[in-house]
């Protein structure tokens, strides 16, 4: 009797937690995204106004988060920085999903292609992600588009692998086999049956890629192969702050917190979405 009550309580607790996780995650994320979009309305001026006479002022009522080594307002740069940091994360997630799904479906559905594609995917996954991205960005020259491209190359195989595995399972499902027996074309089976079943795992994976890509972008900027040190991003801000962390710790503090909170909210959303969209996976990672 007590066990039943206890487990009932547990389920109720878990349910409530899951919903609040999703709500909190989505709310925080929305605040960050809206702030980035409406940055001009939320800040006193453009992010790149130099004021050499006011270098490295600590936080004050004029400059909520102080000024940096060029006398630029840290708060303004932080708000604008979200554009690049969130933008690169979102674009990477989007493109990785598109290419990953395409490659994964092709490999999973056409055994002829599977051997070659799987080798390439495995080979790409053998490189630590940051390492591959560094080499690619250095090769392609630092720019926003090239950072997105490099990170897409890094994360596409990860999504492709998931999609391929799911496709292999789905195409053996009885109703898919039935459809094939009825003479439905491969393209239609892919679109109608396989893709539909893949939507939830892709959304979940995409959310995590979004989060990891933000961290990776920050690392790239930190190593000096980021998009552009001229345009504010949270990673660039921390990287520049490194020289001053003794006399101006706020320079690294706020962008660091921004990355952490944004990535955390994305992970919360991803986690909760997985539970909601795919009850089968509820107990796994």
């Amino acid at each position, binding site marked *: 009797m007590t066990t039943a009550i206890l487990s009932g309580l*547990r389920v109720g*607790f878990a349910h409530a937690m899951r919903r609040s996780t999703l709500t909190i995650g989505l709310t925080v994320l929305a605040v960050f995204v809206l702030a980035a979009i409406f940055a001009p309305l939320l800040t006193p001026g453009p992010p790149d106004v130099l004021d050499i006479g006011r270098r490295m002022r600590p936080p004050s009522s004029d400059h909520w988060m102080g000024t940096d080594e060029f006398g630029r307002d840290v708060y303004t740069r932080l708000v604008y920085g979200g554009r690049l940091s969130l933008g690169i994360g979102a674009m990477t997630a989007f493109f990785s999903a598109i290419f990953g799904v395409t490659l994964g479906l092709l490999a999973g559905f056409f055994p002829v292609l599977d051997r070659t594609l799987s*080798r390439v995917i495995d080979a790409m996954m053998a490189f630590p992600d940051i390492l591959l991205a*560094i*080499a690619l960005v250095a090769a*392609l020259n630092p720019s926003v588009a090239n950072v997105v491209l490099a990170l897409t190359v890094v994360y596409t195989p990860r999504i492709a692998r998931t999609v391929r595995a799911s496709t292999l399972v789905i195409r053996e499902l009885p109703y898919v086999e039935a459809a094939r027996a009825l003479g439905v074309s491969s393209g239609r089976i892919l679109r109608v049956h396989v893709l539909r079943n893949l939507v939830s795992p892709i959304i979940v994976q995409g959310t995590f890629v979004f989060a990891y890509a933000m961290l990776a972008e*920050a690392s790239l900027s930190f190593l000096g192969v980021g998009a552009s040190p001229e345009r504010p991003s949270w990673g660039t801000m*921390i990287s520049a702050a490194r020289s001053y962390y003794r006399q101006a710790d706020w320079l690294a503090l706020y962008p660091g917190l921004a990355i952490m909170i944004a990535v*955390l909210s994305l992970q919360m959303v991803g986690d909760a979405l997985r539970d909601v969209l795919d009850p089968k996976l509820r107990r796994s990672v």
Partner: protein
Amino acid sequence: MIGFLAHRLGDMLAILIVVAVMVFVVVRVLPGDPATILVGDNASPEAAALMRETLGLDEPIPVQFLIWARNLLRGDLGQSIFLGEPVLTVLAQRAEPTLFLTLMAVMISVLIALPAGIVAAVFRNTVIDRAVLAFAMMIASVPSFWLGLIFISTFAVAHPWFPVSGYGAPGASLAERLHCLVLPALVLGLIKSALITRFTRSSMLDVLHEDFILTCRAKGLGEWAVIMKHALRSAFIPILTIIGLGLALLLGGAIVTETVFALPGVGNLVVSAVLRRDYPVIQGALLVIASVYVIVNVAIDLLYALVDPRVRLR
């Protein structure tokens, strides 16, 4: 079993060939060239051209690839342009800090993650479980270099318990060298522990629902005995997998941390090699790092096959 082995090894070889080609292509499209960097910022373009010739970089790219591939088959990764030593020697010199750092980091992460994951699984869906998961999620959200900077300013500058960076003076004792690795290993270990905690938790949850555990409980074994003795043992192989892959990834992937703490490891070597376009070193290092990952992967597969004969049929 032999057929399976041959199949997996064939796979491995194919992947390694793809890796080698990718490495060469990526490295050679890098703009900038080592000759210009070597002759310095005050030199003329002619001096750079001459140096390119000396280094054999004036050959057409396909020819250079063939030369590189031929030497590769002989086990020769080439000669570093800047360091004047064979790439293998250079890599071997950098192996120690990376190896020790990786081992320490994995040890730390396992020490944190195993207990945390087990406790979370046992008390699933309670406040304890949620707290563990929340903490893991938070740790996974922190940029590693930021955590590194915070650790340095707290434990090396404000409280000078550990060196700020580096790997000791020339001729430093093993203890001194390991002392240098504590902070970076803590950073890596903490961040790595997030994934292992979650994985341990879910593996344990899977196992705790299986019939033989119910049987054990029915036999009247104490709950902790069941968990520690039986459940953990069954959950251990998947956990080991994730630890093994983590190990393989860290061996080449501690780049950011090695940079923050100025450790003369493999990751740092790759970054500086990219910045000075030391082609043979970038190619060699990338190849070795990727190969380690591929080999560990295959080793894990084989391990599975040994433990679970059904795998071989797949």
